[in-house]
């Protein structure tokens, strides 16, 4: 039976508020999910099951000190309140032992929000047949993950937030006999068989392009079209030593050269945080509500960084509702002028990359990223696909591929869902266009 986490969370928050002493303050954050997982290989079930998980993190603040504790919210009211009480007492003892934090930020806002997005998902026992029957005969592999995801927040200032969404994500690959593959993803609040069928039809059409043996491409620089999923991987690097104000202040950002004006990004490149689609909670780990829209890089200029309240206090900046990690939570890259239907024609001769894999900074201070091509990637001549390619390693600076060598971005953006499930299911995703780049550097 599905637990009522919202009322349990309210009760725990109320009990903690009631137990505060002197100048103590608290924040309480919740992450929970009821999830159905089915792992597929060769269009058969490899693993299947369900997970019911919910935990809270209690931060206790007092005497300029902050300590925190995480514990499970089980749905058993008495047990959960007992766990909360024990956590408060343990944390209170610890408060006296840790050093003072000059950059402590105590909750102070008055924001309250409640967003609930109901959906129509597949019943657990129907997942295998519904997903697998249409793909019999294909070498289909991937993960179906569905169910309710919740996030909650409460604090001693009276702020309260609740975000619940019934979602599913089917992240899959379809392989040819010689190991080439097409990648696809389907995500949303409501499972729709027709949409699934259309998506599969699109994927199987792409499979036909992979019929020829892969071509080996020598290392070098090639004009390259990066499809939206590939751009999403590059944009994800902005979360890791990118637009974080703390990272910039502490010598740990690839965008320091941009901030100091020593390197430029293309005036065609604009990146913003945009919560208007409601796919992720707007509240952060201090209960603050982020602005609906915040430009980060506008026409190549770094116009805003992501500034958490703690960073703001330390460096004398204005907070803009960023989470403590200061990474984009709902990134949107603005479109350009390239008709996606004309992408191959505009590419002319070079490489068409559907996906990338395993990106990492190879030299963060200079913005250089290395990674691999993956899935349906092609050698193109005179606007026509010649053959799929053997995977290539690239090693290229942001200041080139999104800077002086960026030719254009497509006129449309695609939603690339965040399908990660480390610890718990992620929500949201990025909205990105495709991108045409000159002289993209391949090294192996």
């Amino acid at each position, binding site marked *: 039976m599905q637990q009522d986490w919202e009322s349990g969370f309210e009760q725990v928050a109320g009990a903690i508020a009631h137990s505060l002493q002197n100048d103590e303050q608290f924040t309480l954050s919740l992450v929970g999910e009821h999830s159905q997982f089915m792992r597929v290989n060769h269009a058969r079930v490899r693993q299947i099951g369900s997970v019911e998980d919910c935990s809270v993190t209690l931060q206790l603040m007092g005497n300029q000190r902050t300590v925190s504790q995480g514990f499970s919210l089980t749905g058993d009211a008495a047990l959960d309140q007992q766990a909360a009480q024990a956590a408060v007492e343990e944390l209170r003892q610890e408060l006296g032992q840790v050093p003072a934090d000059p950059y402590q930020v105590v909750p102070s806002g008055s924001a309250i929000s409640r967003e609930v997005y109901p959906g129509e998902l597949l019943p657990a026992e129907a997942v295998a047949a519904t997903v697998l029957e249409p793909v019999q005969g294909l070498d289909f592999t991937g993960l179906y993950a569905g169910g309710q995801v919740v996030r909650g927040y409460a604090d001693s200032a009276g702020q309260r937030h609740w975000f619940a969404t019934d979602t599913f994500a089917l992240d899959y690959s379809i392989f040819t006999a010689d190991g080439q593959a097409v990648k696809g993803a389907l995500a949303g609040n409501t499972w729709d068989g027709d949409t699934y069928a259309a998506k599969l039809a699109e994927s199987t059409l792409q499979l036909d392009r992979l019929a020829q043996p892969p071509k080996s491409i020598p290392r070098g620089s090639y004009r390259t079209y990066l499809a939206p999923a590939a751009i999403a991987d590059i944009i994800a690097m902005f979360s890791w030593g990118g637009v974080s104000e703390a990272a910039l202040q502490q010598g740990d950002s690839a965008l320091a050269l941009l901030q100091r004006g020593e390197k430029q990004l293309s005036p065609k490149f604009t990146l913003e945080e945009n919560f208007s689609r409601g796919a992720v909670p707007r509240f952060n780990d201090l209960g603050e509500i982020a602005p609906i829209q915040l430009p980060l890089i506008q026409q190549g200029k770094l116009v805003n960084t992501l500034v958490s309240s703690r960073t703001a206090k330390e460096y004398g900046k204005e907070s803009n509702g960023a989470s403590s990690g200061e990474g984009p939570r709902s990134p949107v890259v603005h479109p350009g002028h390239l008709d996606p239907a004309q992408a191959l024609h505009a590419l002319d001769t070079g490489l068409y990359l559907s996906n990338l894999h395993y990106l990492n900074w*190879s*030299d963060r201070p200079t913005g250089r990223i290395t990674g691999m091509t993956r899935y349906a990637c092609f050698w193109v001549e005179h606007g026509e696909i010649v053959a799929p390619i053997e995977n290539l390693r690239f090693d290229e600076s942001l200041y080139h591929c999104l800077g002086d060598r960026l030719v254009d971005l497509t006129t449309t953006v695609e939603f690339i869902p965040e399908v990660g499930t480390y610890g718990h299911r992620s929500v949201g995703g990025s909205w990105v266009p495709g991108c045409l780049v000159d002289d993209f550097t391949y090294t192996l």
Partner: protein
Amino acid sequence: MISNLHQILSTLDFPADWVGLRALRESSTYRELRDGLPEVNHRSVDAGVMVEVMVQGQLGYGAVNSFDPARIREAAQQAYAQANAASQWAIHAITPSVRPKVVGHYASPLVKPLNALSPGEINEILARICKLLKQSDAIVRTSALATTQEIDTWFVSSNGSEVHQQFSLIETYYGAIAQEGAQVQKRSNNGMLAHCYQGGWEMFLDDTLWQRVEQIGAQTLALLTAEECPTERTTLVLAPDQMMLQIHESVGHPLELDRILGDERNYAGGSFVTLADFGNLSYGSELMNITFNPTVAGEFASYGFDDIGNPATREYLIKDGVLQRGLGSLESQTRTNVPGVACARASSWNRPPIDRMANLNLEPGTEPAAAIIGDIEHGVYMEANRSWSIDDQRYKFQFGCEYAQRIENGTLTKPLRNPNYRGTTPEFWHSLVRIGAADTWEMYGTPYCGKGEPNQAIRVGHGSPLCAFDGIEVFGGGA
């Protein structure tokens, strides 16, 4: 707990071929200081149970964050229903032989318990580290962290298994960033959280700590004015803290049988290794001996039994350069007929076991470090990983390190900054030409080995001696 789980098991009334209950309770602490000031003082308790149910050759699982018998029974019922519904779609019909009966106990070695230091004492040590790292105004960031876990796991099954394992784990990190103008350099103690061990505070607070902190601070500053790593093919000597990553990415992952079977193709990827390669493939030079060894005292991923109860033993995966067996659990072994190891592991109670590395070690040779370096006329020495990337078949890699030195006429000379190297897995391991003796062997680990759908980050340990490779492509930073 064992008796409670047995009691629950005895009340399950569905017609399953096999049922297993795996309970886990993890208490952890995480304390981090930056520039000598507190960033995080966190503790947590996580607990739950996974029930696995086998019906007509298919396993289903149900996991719940509670030890409440009613909730566990409910999870078991869900697991049964899903196994039943999926059984006609099973990729490989299994039998209870992949979950044999086992009874046993394991506990991490422990000298100085994790609760021996108070939160205040830990903060004082981390603050002192930050202070010692800050050797000049050019050091713009210092950080130090320590995280501990005490984990109990209990496993019972319908065919009589009873296993209790108790793990004591400690992970530490400290490092600095130095900056002068556009030049930025980061240096740390063997790379991000490489200091991962089983045991207690004795694994961190040893006699070398403060001297090492001072060395890291000094090297951070030295990197600011160091020469760029040259772009050339040369003899590359890798320290054990970088060999850890090299073994992990280019030996461990490609030998996972579930990757070779295709289970991971949609996420982590496949492997350039095929099932026919086991027993035949020359993976590297004859100096290469790789063992799967969860029995090393203090190494991060030691255990008595994997998460399905298979007893852990030391096994050669690669012997004298030739591939012998895979990283495959009992399930993968039945699917492939390839010999495997006890490696069915889950990151926690809320994820099902899959094929994982545990401790994967390069066995030492006989050569002293001085002999290896002394015989190199021209080369580069690198240590401490800072960048890692490899393709989905685990073939083409590029790795970067924090710190390097030139080797000139048999001597380590000036430092080099932004060192990187790249290559392909078989060519690289065949270029292994010198391997250090046991006194050069060091063990490290990481808590962040990522794999699986749903995703699982798991703890692994890797030990290696100093190694030299001929004809490797090295290069520096910059755009």
